[in-house]
């Protein structure tokens, strides 16, 4: 209990004083995860829509695979990305290991299956509803996908938020590919792991509370944005 109170008070103190190190780490966490989220959405959402509207041979297999990969262990992703980006790996020449870009890649790989699976569920339901109309209107495949993505945007937002939550709280993979380098690749989760390792539970908890606060704030602001849209128009 002492540790928890200690952690809360430290967290409050760090935030009130806008501790520069904390701000730096939190901003990096946000930047890495938001970038990964945008990249992942650009891949996962059209993929989800495509899987919903297009019938092809391995469609069911791919959907099953995506569902299975939702539970992809981040440590394994980290390791694979590490091996690929290492100087002795196939993409070593790019020199990306231990950079924020490597962390973005790892997080993207982790959340694409999650976002695609969740998005696919809702797009599939919407497609069942729209099918007859859109077929009758003879729209192109691309128009179909755009219409479904736009009209399912609320559900897709939820899918994206799930991805955000998983990415921002992830530590195993980014520890491996980022290396937790101070002022370069240290983010909230790896800093928490580091402080825990040092036995600094108070500070670790404080960072943990900041992380939770950040995740909650992002979720609330997205929901708030969604609600204003609804309030305005309907």
């Amino acid at each position, binding site marked *: 209990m002492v540790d928890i109170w200690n952690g809360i008070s430290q967290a409050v103190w760090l935030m009130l004083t806008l501790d520069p190190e904390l701000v730096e780490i939190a901003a990096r966490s946000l930047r890495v995860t938001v970038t990964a989220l945008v990249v992942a959405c650009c891949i996962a959402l059209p993929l989800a829509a495509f899987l919903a509207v297009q019938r092809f041979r391995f469609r069911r297999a791919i959907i099953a695979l995506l569902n299975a990969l939702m539970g992809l262990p981040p440590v394994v992703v980290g390791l694979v990305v590490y091996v690929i980006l290492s100087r002795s790996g196939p993409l070593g020449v790019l020199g990306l290991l*231990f950079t924020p870009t490597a962390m973005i890649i790892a997080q993207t790989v982790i959340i694409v299956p999650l976002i695609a699976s969740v998005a696919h569920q809702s797009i599939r339901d919407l497609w069942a509803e729209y099918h007859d109309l859109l077929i009758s209107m003879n729209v192109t495949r691309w128009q179909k996908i755009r219409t479904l993505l736009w009209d399912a945007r609320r559900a897709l937002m939820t899918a994206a938020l799930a991805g955000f939550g998983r990415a921002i709280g992830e530590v195993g993979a980014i520890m491996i590919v980022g*290396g937790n380098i101070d002022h370069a690749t240290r983010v909230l989760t790896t800093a928490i792991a580091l402080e825990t*390792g040092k036995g600094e539970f108070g500070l670790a908890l404080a960072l943990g509370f900041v992380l939770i606060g950040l995740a909650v704030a992002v979720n609330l602001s997205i929901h708030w944005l969604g609600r204003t849209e609804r309030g305005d128009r309907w």
Partner: protein
Amino acid sequence: MKRILLGTAFLAIATTAHAEDVMKMAVTTSFNNSGLAEVLLPEIREDLDLEVQLLVVGTGQAIKLGEAGDVDAILVHSRAAEDAFVSGGYGTHRTEIMYNDFVFVGPNDDPAGIEDAEAATEALQDIAAAEAPFVSRGDDSGTHKMELNLWKSADLDVEGFGDWYNAVGQGMGAALNTAAGMNAYILSDRASWLNFGNKADLGLLFSGDPVLFNQYAYLPVNPEKHPHVQTELADKLEAWLVSDRAKELIDSYEIAGEQLFVFNAGEN
């Protein structure tokens, strides 16, 4: 939507720009936990206009990072592994910088009675005889290798130990946390122990045996194996690390009034 995309793109591009040189060095957890890095790095930055990015890992992984060419130099403390690293052609040479020492930490009431031991090996024999809980790093790190060597010199076989011997496979801090939780004995480097924030009921019970000295060495990665490594920067850093300036900073670094490291570059 477009605005969000643009904003994110901007964020992604606007990574903190560093005007100065940047190199990567793998160091052991024990070195980083000592806090010495936080003293040295700003000075290095000031003196050399060089940002040294630290990858804090176990010795085993540090060596691997050097072998793969993912870092420009390594700073570790495991003689056998270092020699293999150089003879394998992965490092150009090995430069001793400083040493600190390992200590035995355990429950304050000392059930195995190691406090009065004459030598490190005797302390280990006491622990094994009492079958008192013991936490081992078990992660192939320098500290772990040191511990295994000590057991060997004490004529004890780790393989045959009962469940009082716990190999946690984690870094120094995590292992210390485990020891604090189990109220167990553990071998730690002095710096990590002094800096450790969660001491619980543990205390420093045994230290001072010369076999517990822990030599740190600096090994630049061989540019013949990995042409992209920044040999020039690594050499610059090495020159600084063996300089009088480094000697002064290292020797004067204290935690709780205790000197942690002894600078000994150029002595052997």
